[in-house]
């Protein structure tokens, strides 16, 4: 991985900042459009991240962790 992918929260925070910056409305047109494009990209990436979000469930053992088997859930 060349560059660390921003987390969802980082993207969301950036998106929030962009919206605030645009709403304050002092940036030049070119900058506004650039911000807008960046914001759209973040929004799309956020959606993708949400789409892919899964919990990784692991079971601690004496030696470390192992994948938690779903079948365990059906017992008891």
């Amino acid at each position: 991985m060349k560059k660390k992918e921003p987390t969802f929260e980082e993207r969301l925070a950036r998106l929030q900042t962009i919206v605030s910056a645009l709403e304050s409305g002092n940036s030049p047109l070119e900058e506004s459009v650039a911000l807008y494009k960046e914001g759209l990209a973040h929004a799309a990436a956020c959606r993708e991240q949400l789409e892919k979000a899964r919990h990784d469930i692991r079971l601690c053992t004496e030696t470390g962790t192992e994948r938690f088997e779903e079948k365990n859930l059906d017992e008891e």
Partner: protein
Amino acid sequence: MDAILSVRQVTEHLRQAVENRFPYLWVQGEVTNLSRPSSGHVYFSLKENDCLLNCVWFRGQQKDEHFDPLTGEVWEDGPRPSLASRMENGQTVICAGRLTVYGARGQYQMIVELAQAAGLGLWHQEFEALKRRLAAEGLFDPEKKRPLPREPRRVAVITAPTGAAIRDFIRISGGRGLGAEIRIYPVPVQGEEAPPRIVEALERAGRDAWAEVVVLIRGGGSVQDLWAFNDERVARAVRRCPVPVLTGIGHEIDHSITDFAADYAAATPSHAAQLLWQERHVFAQHVDGLETALQNALARRLNDLAMRLAHAGRALALLSPLERLRLQEERLHHAVRRMNTALEASLAEKARRTESLALRLSGAGETCLQRAESAAERAAAPLLSLGRTLTMAQERELSRLETRLQSLDPFEPIRRGYAMACDEEGNLLRSASQTAPGRAFSVLMADGRIRGTVTEVEPLPEGETPPLPPGRSARNPS
């Protein structure tokens, strides 16, 4: 036999024997034959294997409890409803009261004054004591509570790996959060070995220092089932844990000691998952909202810029030379109008003044004129008479002069026989030198003119007078 006793006497003897022997007693047994007639009294039996004790709990004794009847501790959270309303068949209760004989039925029975669910009472006593002790130590102090992380990515879950608790937790968390790693620290959650194992897991999670939050969960159960979570060791380990601890212990009633010690207590394992992570569609909605806000913001920004452009355009047009010219022209027109108005007013004023002066003048002038005319008339009278005198004298002089003038008439001599010579141009010839031979001349006579040409010029010698014309004296040579 001394005497034959009546039934009443026997009953009375029995009553006295029973009541004297058991003035007040505590009995534990399982409720059966429970009956609540409309009278409000509660009838039931206490059973233990093949033994039965009939009981009656009169309405007057069924008071809400202000204190624990077994320990005498006052309930801190207010009075509790009497067990009389909650009692159920099969429940093990402890009843306090006295034994008596009910003659009508030939039965002995217990008049109940107090009753308490057996297990609960004892557990509760222990529970309250521990809770009070730990509270006094400050283990439950609100200021010790640490905030839960929002949307944690690393979560340690201490629970039984096979149970409803972990199943519910995983199921609920599935649609939530942004993708976390959940590590299950497997422990037994009931039984004797549960408390030390839970403590161990808490310590391990703390040592690992990996998780952002430790979740301690257990599915619902009876008070006895959940007793491990009322263990002092567990409560202390929770408080000791360097990572915030969230409990999710399914209770039927009240909280456990561990819940009080935890940083946050969820009601159930599912609730714990809900507290940790937001539903994913909430995030999606948030993203949508921000995207909409982004689009609106840009639209507003563009609109704002367009408006500013239009405004600047208008301002520029206002500042243009053409516009300035127009403005100045307008000002000029205005000035001219003002000037004209002023001029007209001024002229009108002058005209008015002239008129009034003329009026005054004409009055004065007429008087003056009349005065002058009469003066002139007066002055003219002597002049007129003088004039008339002068005229007569002049007339006389005039006729005299006329007479003299007539005598001087150049044509008089002609009429008397003299002639007058003129050159070809009509000029009077006064000297012979004025003509020369060959030149034309004319002679004017009284009755006509003679034209001819000079043939000879003969000047008179010096001192000789020309011959006089006939009939004339030499008196008037000119």
